[in-house]
Every structure is written in structure tokens, then in C-alpha cells.
């Protein structure tokens, strides 16, 4: 790889078109003496090439004005055949993704939750009887690696690919009006450990960690005790799950959160493709 890069750099140096801007400092008279050619020496090959006025080779990187396939945007950016093909690919990809988009607008979560979205982070907020419950999640890296790779050979060509589902970790914060402490519960969707049959027999979501944090402070206080549920008494765990269920964070909520997260992730993915297309085509 390193050798290939060096070869490409050398080739590019030979092909470089005449600079449109004043020559760089390296070629000026104030350059260190060692970089200047000795007096009377023949000019280097690269310079003689561009002194011929560009020649035919410049067309690979920048087509001459008026030639077929010329770019008249005048942005000054690089426009290669590869970029053109990439932009066309993205156009098709965006079209296909919009076609299979399940939700054109984000689905609601039942139970009176208000939704706030900031880029890839979403927050659901609910107030009940002197308590404020917030559920925060981020759709980045929320699609687990699927088992479809193992069955790809068995899949028929005309079969649709399985839907991608976003199962983000989510953090539940419970703030009681009369206390300065927030109870924070870090929740996860179980990973596919035993295949699809095992998934049907497991909890929809699990609590991984529980901690108290000062209300209103954005910095995590890592000197506060964090309970890890890996080795937790089962009865205590069940009480925590019932506690969450009483506040609307139950299996139904967890299911609806998957729908919301999947829709948001798809939406952000399409937006990213559109931004990428604009960037590649013309900034």
C-alpha cells in the first residue's frame, strides 16, 4: 500500500497543471538554498511538462472549458469521473431508501411522552405526579450486527433483505420534585446470544446499571456508587423493573422505542446520503 501511494504521488507530480495562484513559497527566491537547482541546470521534467501549456494530460483531472463533460460550476473543487459516478450512485440510493422508508415522520410513543430530537440524540420526557421521567438515547451505532451474514448464501436473489432495526441503549432518569438527586438507570436491549428462538423467551430490555446523580448537572459524578446488575439479587432487579413499569417504561414502551429509533436512524441516514451527494457533486 505504501509503495502504491508513493508511485501515485510521483505520477501526480508529473501531471500537475500550472498553478492558478502565485507559486508556493518553496519555489521562491527566499527558499532554502539546497532546494534550488544549480545555475545552468536543465529544468526538472515536471516543470517542462506544464510549461507546454498543460497538454492533454490535464483533462483527466480537470476538463478544459467547453469540452464534453466539462464542469461549469466554477466552484474550484475537484470533479472526477469517480465523483460523477458516486453522485449518481447516491442519487439512486437515496431514491431507493426513500421508497422503503417506513415512517415519513417519526412515530409517537404512547403514554404521553414528549419527544425532543437533537441530531442523532432523542429525548422522551414525561411528567407524572411530582416526578419527571426522561429517556435519552442516541441512534449512532444502534444497529447490532445481524446474523444475516451467516444465511446470505441461503437467501434467494429475489428475496428482500431483512429490515434493519435500531436497538439503542437508553438511559432513564427519574427526578422527584422534592429531591436534589436523580435516579439514573442504564438500559440495554439484549443481544442475540442464542438465536431467534432465544430472543422470544428473553426480556425485551434489561437494566444494566443504576446510579444516583446530582440533578441538573451535566457532568457524570463517577464518585457516586454505580450498581451493576450482572450480579444483582434477582428480587431487587424485579423491583427495579416494576419501578420502571410504574413510570411507563415497560415492554410496550421498549418496543415502541425501537420503532422510533429505527425511524430516526433511517431518517438521519437518508439525510447523510443527501449531504454526501451535495458534497461530492459540488460543495
Amino acid at each position, binding site marked *: 500500500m505504501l509503495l502504491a501511494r508513493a508511485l501515485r504521488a510521483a505520477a501526480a507530480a508529473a501531471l500537475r497543471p500550472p498553478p492558478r495562484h502565485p507559486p508556493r513559497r518553496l519555489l521562491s527566491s527566499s527558499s532554502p538554498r539546497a532546494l534550488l537547482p544549480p545555475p545552468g541546470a536543465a529544468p526538472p521534467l515536471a516543470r517542462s511538462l506544464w510549461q507546454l501549456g498543460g497538454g492533454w494530460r490535464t483533462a483527466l483531472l480537470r476538463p478544459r472549458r467547453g469540452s464534453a463533460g466539462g464542469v461549469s460550476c466554477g466552484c474550484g473543487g475537484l470533479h472526477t469521473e469517480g465523483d460523477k459516478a458516486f453522485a449518481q450512485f447516491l442519487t439512486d440510493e437515496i431514491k431507493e431508501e426513500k421508497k422503503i422508508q417506513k415512517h415519513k415522520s417519526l412515530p409517537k410513543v404512547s403514554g404521553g411522552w414528549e419527544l425532543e430530537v437533537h441530531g442523532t440524540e432523542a429525548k422522551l420526557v414525561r411528567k407524572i405526579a411530582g416526578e419527571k421521567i426522561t429517556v435519552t438515547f442516541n441512534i449512532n451505532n444502534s444497529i447490532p450486527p445481524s446474523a444475516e451474514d451467516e444465511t446470505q448464501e441461503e437467501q434467494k436473489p429475489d428475496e428482500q433483505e431483512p429490515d434493519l432495526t435500531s436497538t439503542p441503549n437508553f438511559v432513564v432518569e427519574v427526578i422527584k420534585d422534592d429531591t436534589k438527586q436523580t435516579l439514573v438507570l442504564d438500559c440495554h436491549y439484549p443481544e442475540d446470544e442464542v438465536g431467534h428462538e432465544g430472543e422470544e423467551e428473553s426480556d425485551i430490555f434489561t437494566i444494566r446499571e443504576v446510579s444516583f446523580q446530582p440533578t441538573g448537572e451535566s457532568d457524570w459524578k463517577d464518585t457516586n456508587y454505580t450498581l451493576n446488575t450482572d450480579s444483582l439479587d434477582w428480587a431487587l432487579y424485579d423491583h427495579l423493573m*416494576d419501578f420502571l413499569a410504574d413510570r411507563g417504561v415497560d415492554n410496550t414502551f421498549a418496543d415502541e422505542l425501537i420503532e422510533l429509533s429505527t425511524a430516526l436512524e433511517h431518517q438521519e441516514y437518508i439525510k447523510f446520503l443527501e449531504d454526501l451527494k451535495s458534497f461530492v457533486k459540488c460543495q
Partner: protein
Amino acid sequence: MSVVLRNAQRVVSVRRAPLRRAVCALRAALGASRFDVGLVCAGNGLMRRLNGAYRQRPEPTDVLSFPFHRVVAGELPRPSCRDEYNLGDIFLGVEYIHQQCRATGEDFDSVLAVTAAHGLCHLLGYQHRTEGEWQQMYQKEVEILEELNRLTGASLRPLTAGLF
């Protein structure tokens, strides 16, 4: 030892802590506290699939028990190693039970506990295929539910009451 509880459905609200308490008390009444038991709260879909796969009856039901050991009713398993301290798994058809309770007006949590008692007895070899088997199982259910009633103040009766 452990009661491993999983709620694998989203149709019915299930209170985990009281269900665990009930199952632990029933297991103790059976003299089987040293044994692990698995409890899965399942919806109609899963119960239909399991019922079809293992009993050739592809329809939802209230409880399915999968014993770890094959034992004679009234005897406890004799494990030969730590891994064998396992009674098996009970699948509670909570959606089916909830539908039944809505039809009959019975209390869902009570019927859930009674159904769990029935499932535990199956794990320990009790059956109700004949009148004789049913009588033996019924007596055991009465015994362990009376212990649970004593602890909780409830008045639970066996699932198989009036079967024969």
C-alpha cells in the same frame, strides 16, 4: 436456589416482584428451594408455537412445563452435580390467562400464582391424566397454596379443582 424470571411479551402488564415472591414460596412449600427454576411470561404467539411443537396442539394455553428431571410424583430429583439442581422451565401463558380472567372476572395476579403452582407440580412429576393422578396432584396443590395463603393472606385454590 434461583428463580430466573423473564417477561418475553408486551401484551399484558406483569408485576415481577410479587410473582417471584409467590413462586419462591411455592417452591419452598414443595421442599425444592435448593433447585433453580425458570419462569417465562409468554404471549399467545409463543405459547401456540410451543404447544404445537411439543404437544401437537398449535393453540395458546395457560401453562407449559418442561421438567429437567423425570421424577415420580412426590419425590424430589436426586442431582448428581451442581448443574442438575434444576427443576426445569415453566412458560406462563399470561396473555391467555389474562383473557380468561377478563371473561370470568377473576383476579389476574391470583390466577397467575395458582397457575405457577400447577406448573411447579408438573415439574415434580405430578400429572392429571387419570382420576387417581389428579387427586394426588390436587392434594399437593392445595397443600402448597395453603402455605402461600398463610404468607400472603390470600385464598387461592388449585387450578385443577373440579377437573374430575
